[in-house]
């Protein structure tokens, strides 16, 4: 019984770290622009497809780290491009226009991918995974790699936000977006950079997800993306550490629900949890209530 629990805990860590990586992208964008980037889930999906293309189409066999970096850069650039083309012109428009534009961009990405690849694709194995067993507990090296890469990226992001000048500028923008340009901070460049980093993390999450669950399809961006968005909200949207916490909580709840209950109850339980948390803590676990002024 304890072994079963330990086994499920490892699975939960794997799923949770992927949710956390995607949730970070939602939270970072919300932090600087106070906007829900509904296209983020589809960027996550494109990350998996970019990895597939790089692994299958290129004649040379690239090492894992190079593919990861390439995927992050490509998806990051795409995220920054979407911000530049679709969101920046709407920065002074009513907030809901930007949200609808994001929804539209997400639909465009999703359905373009769907039209180009109508059937689910299979992700090749990028490296041969071995199974380690400790007693009756089995862990694959792939799981260790996924959890390790995800944790490494999160620590890297934490360093970026707390220790670098870019991170300081980003936090300043989310604290007071009007005063920041007066202090000589190039707001537009910082927002582009935020989108680059957030989308890059989403792309990396897509690649890790494809390695963990090798069947990838164009619609997974919507399914997994909305889940990760919920993770961001549970933690308190806009809060970086909250996003990580929410990702692991959601991953844990989903895996445990499937482990101990019929699997069709998974969504019911995770969304009821979300509703319960929002009723008692309306701004998430680590979130700050917004200032409401007259």
């Amino acid at each position, binding site marked *: 019984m304890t072994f079963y629990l330990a086994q499920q805990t490892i699975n939960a860590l794997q799923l949770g770290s992927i949710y956390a990586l995607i949730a970070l992208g939602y939270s970072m964008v919300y932090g600087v622009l106070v906007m*829900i980037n509904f296209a983020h889930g589809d960027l996550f999906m494109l990350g998996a497809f970019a990895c597939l293309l790089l692994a299958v189409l290129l004649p040379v066999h690239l090492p894992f780290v190079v593919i990861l970096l390439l995927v992050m850069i490509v998806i990051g650039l795409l995220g920054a491009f979407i911000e530049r083309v679709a969101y920046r012109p709407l920065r002074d428009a009513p907030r809901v226009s930007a949200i609808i*534009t994001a929804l539209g961009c997400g639909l465009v990405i999703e359905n373009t991918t769907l039209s180009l690849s109508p059937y689910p694709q299979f992700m090749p194995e990028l490296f041969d995974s071995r199974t380690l067993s400790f007693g009756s507990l089995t862990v694959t090296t792939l799981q260790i790699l996924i959890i390790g890469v995800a944790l490494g990226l999160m620590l890297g992001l934490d360093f970026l936000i707390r220790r670098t000048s870019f991170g300081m500028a980003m936090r300043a923008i989310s604290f007071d977006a009007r005063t920041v340009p007066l202090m000589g901070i190039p707001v537009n460049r910082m927002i582009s950079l935020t989108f680059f980093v957030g989308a890059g993390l989403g792309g990396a999450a897509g690649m890790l997800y494809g390695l963990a669950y090798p069947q990838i399809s164009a619609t997974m961006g919507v399914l997994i993306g909305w889940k990760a968005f*919920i993770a961001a909200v549970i933690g308190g949207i806009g809060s970086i550490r909250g996003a990580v916490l929410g990702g692991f909580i959601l991953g844990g709840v989903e895996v445990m629900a499937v482990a101990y209950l019929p699997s069709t109850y998974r969504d019911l339980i995770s969304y009821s949890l979300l509703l319960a948390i929002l009723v008692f803590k309306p701004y998430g676990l680590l979130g700050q209530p917004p200032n409401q002024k007259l």
Partner: protein
Amino acid sequence: MRHFLDSVARCRWALPALIAVGFAFVVACEYFPLLNDYSKIVLITVGINIILCSSLNLVNGYMGEFSVGHAGFMALGAYASALMTIKWLPASVFELPLGVLFGGTIAAAIGFLLALLSFKTRGDYLAIITLAFLMIVKSAIENINYVGGPRGMTPPVLTNLPWTFFWVVVTLWVIRNLIYSKFGRAITAIREDEIAANAMGVRIREAKILAFVTSSFFGGVAGALYAQVNFFIDPKSFDIVKSTEILVMVYLGGIASLGGSIIGAVIFTVLLQVLQPLGTWRMVILPLILVLLMLFRPRGIMGMRELTWFLPAGELFKRPKP
């Protein structure tokens, strides 16, 4: 010409006349072969989409919240009416009207609960609550064997053009009268500034309940009509994709405008049919149109404006000359 159009727009008889002609036409379609079945289905879909769009506009446009759970109310209405027509009252004369009313009532009851939740949270967090509501409804239906679970249900085909037309008129009439009533002013005041409205003595909670219950009632009505026209419903037909479709229609047509809702629903439904040969690419083109529209006209086609026919006489003279 312009003068003529203007006088038509201001003629108080034009709208009732149009409704009467429309009703005569749809009834005639039932008895004479004026339209083929395909056009009838398209027209019924347009009608259902107008109901969905204008009822969502009440919460998203006039009250200024961002609900993404409208497909959940649709699902409740569809399943409630399907239960009525398949299991409880099969082969009764009143099954369609009763089923639709029952579907709307069930959806309205759940909408009341959602309104209670909206007292504490608003804005993005309320959007997420509606999302959670949608997902809970969908997976709850999937887990109830009595209604077929993930396999869905096959209600009889009962919806016809006259009934759809009737419900479209009822929806628009009720929502239009609600908006220009005292309660409607309260709902709009919440959109403009909830705290200030509260300070002015607007009963926020009453207005929110009224808006949510009305909106979800007509969402349920649309779902019930949808269930009886499609021959098959399953939980998957009411997921976030359906909600997104309704949102696209609302914001395409324009927020806080019933005329906009009609235009948005008509354009969206007809374009989907016209672009049929393109296959899945049409769902690339439609969102692209929406994005471009948002970039160049952030309020949608008719945002914050209204067809003159829907305005009460007292409002006509306040409008600035175009």
